[in-house]
């Protein structure tokens, strides 16, 4: 059975965002109240994301938010847009296909360190290679929170959890290093307590033409309290922000970071935790979206834009 007939006139439809329409505002974007624990860093990420969408002002119906499994992966429930909650670790291939299938959509994927670097590690690597146009926001709390404190792939050596009561012994994943190695074309990092910086990073990521990743250190107040204090000036930590080159000819510009320089990006990525914050790397490489579209255009040219019926008929003639 198909859906019921349209029962409201189109003129009364809420058409929000996009050129010539009422601008997207937070009140339109707010959906269910988040189920996160009070004090969770993810609230700040959500608030920043609303601001990013307000600034981008996409047509509301063309925004897609998708996620895997975990605390942070509840994100799409809290954004009033098309979206969903897929299986553990697999939001990237799912979201990439949405982008490849529909150029008119703006695709965002959300996840945590477990979803992104552990069960979905393989997909992260290949999403970076494929360079499909989409934005991936990783809320890294260095612990499995939803399942109440097990070791995560970014937990530091010595971290005590229910699965490592004597302290974690494995080398943690370095997300920046991993993403640079995999060939991601936009790699940035931020901290959930630095709201303006975080918003700027997500905005730049969304505007990047390719696969963009922002890792945000987002504290789990229940199971990993104080994990990122070392990078939080208000807790006595040191905020090491990457200053990007301005090409303004000033002497101090020589010391600033050129985000197209992979070697220099890797040096920043290799710094000891909590490391640097900002855009590590940003280059333009043809997106898979574009390469596939070009391939389609080339083959359609060869077949002179034949219809499916014409194509099948000519194929079957050869099968006789």
């Amino acid at each position, binding site marked *: *059975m*198909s*859906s*019921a*007939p*349209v*029962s*409201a006139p*189109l003129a*009364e*439809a*809420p*058409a*929000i965002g996009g050129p010539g329409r009422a601008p997207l505002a937070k009140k*339109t974007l707010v*959906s*269910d109240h988040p189920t996160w624990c009070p004090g969770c860093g993810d609230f700040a990420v959500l608030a920043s994301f609303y601001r990013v969408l307000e600034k981008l002002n996409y047509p*509301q*119906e*063309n925004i897609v938010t998708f996620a895997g499994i975990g605390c942070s992966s509840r994100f*799409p*429930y809290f954004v*009033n847009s*098309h*979206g*969903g*909650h*897929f*299986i553990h670790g*697999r939001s*990237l*291939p*799912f*979201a*990439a*296909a*949405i982008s*490849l*299938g*529909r150029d*008119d959509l703006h695709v965002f994927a959300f996840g945590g360190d477990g979803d992104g670097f552990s069960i979905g590690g393989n*997909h992260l*690597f*290949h999403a970076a290679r494929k360079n499909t146009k989409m934005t991936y926001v990783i809320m890294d709390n260095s612990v499995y929170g939803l399942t109440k404190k097990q070791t995560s792939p970014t937990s530091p050596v010595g971290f005590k959890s229910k699965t490592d009561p004597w302290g974690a012994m494995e080398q943690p994943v370095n997300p920046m290093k991993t993403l640079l190695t995999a060939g991601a074309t936009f790699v940035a990092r931020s901290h959930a307590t630095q709201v303006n910086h975080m918003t700027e990073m997500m905005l730049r990521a969304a505007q990047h033409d390719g696969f963009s990743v922002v890792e945000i250190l987002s504290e789990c107040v229940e199971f990993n309290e104080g994990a990122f204090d070392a990078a939080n000036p208000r807790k006595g930590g040191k905020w090491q922000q990457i200053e990007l080159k301005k090409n303004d000819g000033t002497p101090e510009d020589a010391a600033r970071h050129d985000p197209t320089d992979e070697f220099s990006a890797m040096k920043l990525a290799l710094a000891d935790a909590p490391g640097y914050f900002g855009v590590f790397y940003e280059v333009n490489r043809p997106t898979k979206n574009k390469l*596939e579209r070009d*391939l*389609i255009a*080339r083959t*359609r040219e*060869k*077949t002179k834009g034949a*219809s*499916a*019926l014409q*194509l*099948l008929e000519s*194929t*079957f003639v050869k*099968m*006789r």
Partner: protein
Amino acid sequence: MVSPNSSTPGGQPGSAVASSADKTTIPDVVIRLAGNSQDGIQSVGGFLARLAGRSDQDVMTYMTIPATISGGPSIFQVRMGTGDILSSGDQADFLVAFYQHSYESHISALRPGGVLIYDTDHVKPNPEDRRFTNVGIPITSATVEAVGGTGKDKGKNIFVLGLIARIFDLDVPKLSQLIKERLGGRGEEAVRNAMMAFDAGYAHPVENLLGHLYRFARATSTGATTSRPAVTMDGNTAMVYGLLAAGVRYGAAYPITPWSSIMEMLRTELPKYGGLFVQAEDEIAAVSHALGFAYSGHLSVTGSSGPGLSLKMEALGWGSMAEIPLICINVQRGGPSTGMPTSVEQSDLLQALYGSHGDTPRVVLAPKDVEDCFYIAMEAARIAKEFSTPVIILTDQALATRIEAFEEPDLKALVKEPVLDLTPAPVDYKPYPLEKWPKHVPPGTRMLSGKYPTVTGLEHDEAGHPSASPVVHAKMNARRREKIKAVAATLPAHEIYGDQSGDALVIGWCSTYGPIREAVNQLRSGDQPIKVGQLHLRHLAPFAPGLAEIFARYKKVVVCEINDEGLHGYGQLAMLLRGAFANPSIVSVTKTDGLTFKVREIVAGVQKHLSA
């Protein structure tokens, strides 16, 4: 006219009818070519199959490819003749052996009285073995002589094609045309060399060695006239064109034998249709991509073979829960685990039905022959779209690789151009209403309520909100079950071939259709005919209604399938039917040797159950 595979080109009592002094008329013949994988024997089989498609003859082929990476023994078996060819033949009438190992491995497949053609340059047959007519021909040296010194091992396949054309009085102009079409792309010299090899084979004097030549009986008109010509292709190819005709433009997969040829063809074809196919990093990414395409509003396909289907199961469960239309093809092969990748088996039925977690009622379909691969793909697309649900197509290795000729589909009536439907959703829209089955609303659709939907694998209420309420979970489980039951009401009624009641109803699924049909014909027309019907199930879940009533009309319901008899003595479909209908007359004939059913195995199985 359907003949059992006891045709006797040797002129023994049976179906052969002598018509002239030097030509023996036969209804059909089974030829097995045995060589190495780079000898081009597959292409000889392909030429013969396509020639048959363009002539009066029907055709069915069977092939094995070596599980080695390159080279290694390979065979191609072709059965061609008059009327419906339903199986590739229990035994070969002719064996063409290129090497000693071909001879030694395959001589047992040749029936006593059959003809062994061997390459005297490579093969020394056992002089004590007098069961066959031995025809030694210097295939390699005669080819080298015809084509010239450079083509040492090339062209002997075409030499053999010429030989076969001579022995069976095949249509030489049509064959020449096929060779020119096929090799034309490689330049004039390739065609000239091939034609020289062909002519040398055709001119080779074989009458004296064989004693006589053969020709096929003329087709008796069945009264059915078709306006459309026959097309010749293998099952995987037919599946691809079925998908394209149905409007599938997007998909993703990971390579695995014998599924890979479908994804290779789709990757080649889809850009022409404005679509694309992604080779994913693994099976889970593949099904996730395919679900992403489907969520975004495109009819989408993924596929695999046995182990790959297992990896897709979690995501398929999500597809059922979130109610996303998807076609998932599984080309079954020998299992478990890596099993026998190049052999046939039908042992993924229970996986297809129950392989996911939780109660995940699914739609599972299976094509019955190569032609049906085309139509089942269209059927899967219809159900997936109408009911917003994943649909699994179970095909098998035998169907995937065998070549058959069939009537060209009525493309004008069938082909669908996909339409992305972004009609705004009404204010009272609910994605999961309890007693309706709305279509999936893709992103880009304006929600007139202002409330945008989140699809989820969490249990959810009618609006799609996550809910752990016991009442909601029970109601939603029932909803998903009733939705699949609603599919059954849209299915065509069961068709029974042969006796509509009586001693036995023989049931099969997938590639066993032809051999079962031949077995049923034999059982009904033998010395002691019995009343037997055939029911081939194309819809394995849900079943079309009426099965219990049909079963009641027969003494035994014999389910033939290529899988193990299991812990209780029943194959997988038999177990399913027993569970569904609690009917003790449902019995099982199974096998797991990696080969298709021989007709005599089915005949013996039915007879055994009837005499038990």
